[in-house]
């Protein structure tokens, strides 16, 4: 087995790319995909710790996290469709109904 640091570094890099993507993009769908990327990075680190502790509970947690991510994607995309129907754009700078 290769060292745990490699997996954790990869997870950290993917998470950071996801954060930067959320910050620089204006398309709501791409922002949503970046959130999925961050979820994946965290799943990767969970699996890494699970494997290096010899404990299978981490894999179960990743399984539930996948199920919740599926539910979250369904609801999030429905919200994006609803927003698109209201102002014909998925540009988040044009969604300012609640802005003071």
């Amino acid at each position, binding site marked *: 087995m290769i060292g745990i640091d490699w997996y954790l570094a990869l997870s950290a890099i993917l998470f950071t790319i996801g*954060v930067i993507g959320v910050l620089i993009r204006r398309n709501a769908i791409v922002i949503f995909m970046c959130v999925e990327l961050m979820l994946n990075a965290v799943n990767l680190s969970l699996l890494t710790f699970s494997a290096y502790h010899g404990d299978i509970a981490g894999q179960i947690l990743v399984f539930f996290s996948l199920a919740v991510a599926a539910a979250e994607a369904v609801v999030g995309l429905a919200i*994006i469709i609803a927003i698109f129907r209201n102002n014909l754009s998925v540009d988040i700078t044009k969604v300012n109904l609640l802005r003071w």
Partner: protein
Amino acid sequence: MDIYAFVLLAVLAIASALGMILNKNTINSALLLVVNMVSIAGIYLLLQAQFLALIQILVYAGAIMVLFLFVIMLLNVDEEDTLLNSFRVKYLLAFLLGVIIFGQILYSLGGVAEMLPEISSEMLYVGTVEAVGEVLYTDYLYAFELTAILLTAAVVGALMVAQYKAKPAEGTE
């Protein structure tokens, strides 16, 4: 052998993630995210999690990304013309914040390699369907059943939110 496979998959994952956030075309972003998910599934295989690697490909790269592509094509929004050519300060700030978060993660994970327990060779498990299912259907049975309720609620909620026009309440007795 492991290290070569890991480096290949990691480079693929990072490159596709970078391509995803820098691509102007939304559909290309979604397809690059599929590449990213598949390479992460390969890394799961390196971590002896066969079942989750399969689930990752089936659920993430299959179902969720089809949903994304379907919504992108349904809404017909494929260009984001303002990317990377206005408001440079924002990108600089985003990059700086990303570097800070990366540093924080690395700092908090710094000494973790010394804190690992010694695992003997018989404690090493393989995450096959059998091994995962045995734990899932005994220790975590209630959580598993609750997941079913959660998924049902999510589907019903999504239908309600995305419905074209909700019928007025007085129309239904």
